[in-house]
């Protein structure tokens, strides 16, 4: 990808996050720089406690960074404080979340789990369900639309949760270890789906993972260690080897 010609969907510059104050303060992020472009799936790897989840929470606008700048689609949303008043709407309309576990709403069926997001954004029930059906079809689980969450298999639940993340067609998706509970085959299927969706919808996707099965599939990986990122380009397989070395 010619990254110089396209504006990044996500741009982080010198992002810092410190928990607590005084001697007990813990600096989780020590100046993270990152750029993710539309249609790109980027891996974010690193050991436990390296700051991956903190970075995701800052990006997801659920915790406030201490310093630095966050720019989404050319719009600065954080610099010396949030630049957007309604962070809830930001999360709802511009960021999709995929979690380690599907975390579907157990009292809604598959379609309504997906349709809930557009409905929250003010889309009419009929249109929201139509959009949910489109997403479920794209993820090959439309036939399970009427099923309750408990009736879905683990793989189906994860697909529905991906469909939910895409329901408002956000420019950014943050995936927090989306393949952790899945076997190798299903994990690779999920990554393939994410790549397809990224291409199809021009979505920038950051996948936080420990999963060595899927790391080789990323074209670009950010390795986070001690709160700082190191960009590693090339085949993921090499990155894994380098990281292990």
């Amino acid at each position, binding site marked *: 990808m010619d990254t110089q010609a396209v504006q990044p969907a996500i741009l982080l510059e010198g992002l810092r996050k410190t928990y607590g104050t005084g001697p007990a303060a813990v600096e989780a992020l020590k100046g993270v720089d990152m750029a993710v472009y539309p249609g790109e799936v980027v891996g974010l790897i690193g050991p436990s406690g390296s700051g991956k*989840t903190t970075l*995701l*929470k800052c990006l*997801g606008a*659920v*915790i406030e960074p201490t310093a630095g700048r966050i720019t989404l689609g050319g719009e600065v949303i954080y610099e010396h404080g949030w630049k957007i008043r309604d962070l*809830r*709407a930001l*999360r*709802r*309309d511009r960021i999709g*979340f995929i*979690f*380690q576990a599907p*975390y579907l*709403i*157990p*009292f*809604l069926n598959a379609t*309504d789990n997906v*349709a*809930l*997001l557009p*409905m*929250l*954004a003010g889309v009419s*029930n009929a249109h929201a369900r139509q959009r949910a059906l489109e997403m479920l079809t794209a993820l090959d689980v439309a036939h399970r639309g009427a099923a*309750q969450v408990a009736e879905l298999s683990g793989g189906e639940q994860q697909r529905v949760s991906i469909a*939910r993340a895409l329901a408002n067609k956000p420019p950014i998706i*943050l995936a*927090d270890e989306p393949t952790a509970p899945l076997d190798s085959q299903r994990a690779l299927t999920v990554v393939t789906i994410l790549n397809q969706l990224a291409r199809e919808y021009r979505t920038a996707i950051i996948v936080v993972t420990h999963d060595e099965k899927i790391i080789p599939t990323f074209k670009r990986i950010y390795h986070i260690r001690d709160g700082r990122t190191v960009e590693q380009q090339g085949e993921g397989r090499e990155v894994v080897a380098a990281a292990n070395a």
Partner: protein
Amino acid sequence: MINLASRDIAHGFGRYLLTGLGLGLLIGVTLSMAGIYRGMVDDAKALLESWQADIWVVQQHTLGPFAESSSLHDDVYRGLRGMPGVAEAGNVTFLTMQVKRERSEVRVMISGFEPGRPGEPTLLTAGRPVTRSHYEAIADVKTGFNVGDRIRIRRNEYTVVGLTRRMVSSSGDPMVFIPLKDAQQAQFLKDNEAIRNDRSRLAANPALNRPGVPGLLDAVEANQFSNRNVNAVLVRVQPGWDRQLVAENIKRWKYLQAYTGEEMEEVLVGKMIATAARQIAVFLVILALVSAAIVALIIYTMTLAKIKEIAVLKLIGTRNATIAGMILQEALGLGLIGFVIGKLLATLWGPHFPRYVVLLTEDAVRGFIVTMVICTIASILGIRAALRVDPAAAIGG
């Protein structure tokens, strides 16, 4: 927009319904307690109305036969009948005791009356009035007696010749009406051994058994072993007379206490039932608090069970008001189910209570409003817990 509360309720409807049933039992008890109080007031009014007495004449400085001990000579009524404005006067006695029927016993209030005079039960649902001077009785249906039953009062057997209804004392004991003389005897009747013992004691008392005063011992015995007292005299005033004025005259000239029907109702409802009403009020408050605690705990537990989902909902942009609304609607739904079940149960078990239970619509409406208010307050705990959920909790382990 999807109604999250209705979906959540539908998802675990069995558990929700069972919880509502538990709450319904509490609400049913609460409504029944209110119904018992209403029944007590209603019983008191019905009791006074059925005697059709305009004035109750009782011992001076007492509150009358129901609230305090009152004793009058049984010839007082003669003097009262001669007073201006008095149409009729009749003696009545009251005595609470156990009455035997075959092998069972029933606690009743015995009332002695003079047939044809005020004090006689007039509203019969079965049988006939008392026509003989002795050993016939009219019983309230709550006693469980039937016309023709033989009941034992002290040493004598009575035949139930008629039945009446809504005649119960303020403590809820159903009434049995017997002729005045029998009732007077029953009040003081002792067993044979006690009578013999008393006679021996009197005969051994030199002050009462003087050889120089023949007949003294007999006179004392006759006085001691008989009863010429009644508890009240019921008066009906002549048409056109002010009952307050007649009562005032009785108080002034006879040195007796006289209450109009309204004043006696005030004594019964305002004084005698007041204590019971306060007890019921305290119970109602306790039940309301217990209900609130139960609803609060249930809603709080239900909320805690959904913490991760709530975090996800908040993360994906659900408004706090939507989440709070879901919890509030679930609490109100619980209250609604509880109230419907409670009302149904109170209606079903009401007739089986030993006391008369009056379930008024206005009490039900009040109960419904209170239930909804309690559920709203109780949901605050759950709503607080939900609003404190950090959407960041959805990200990471």
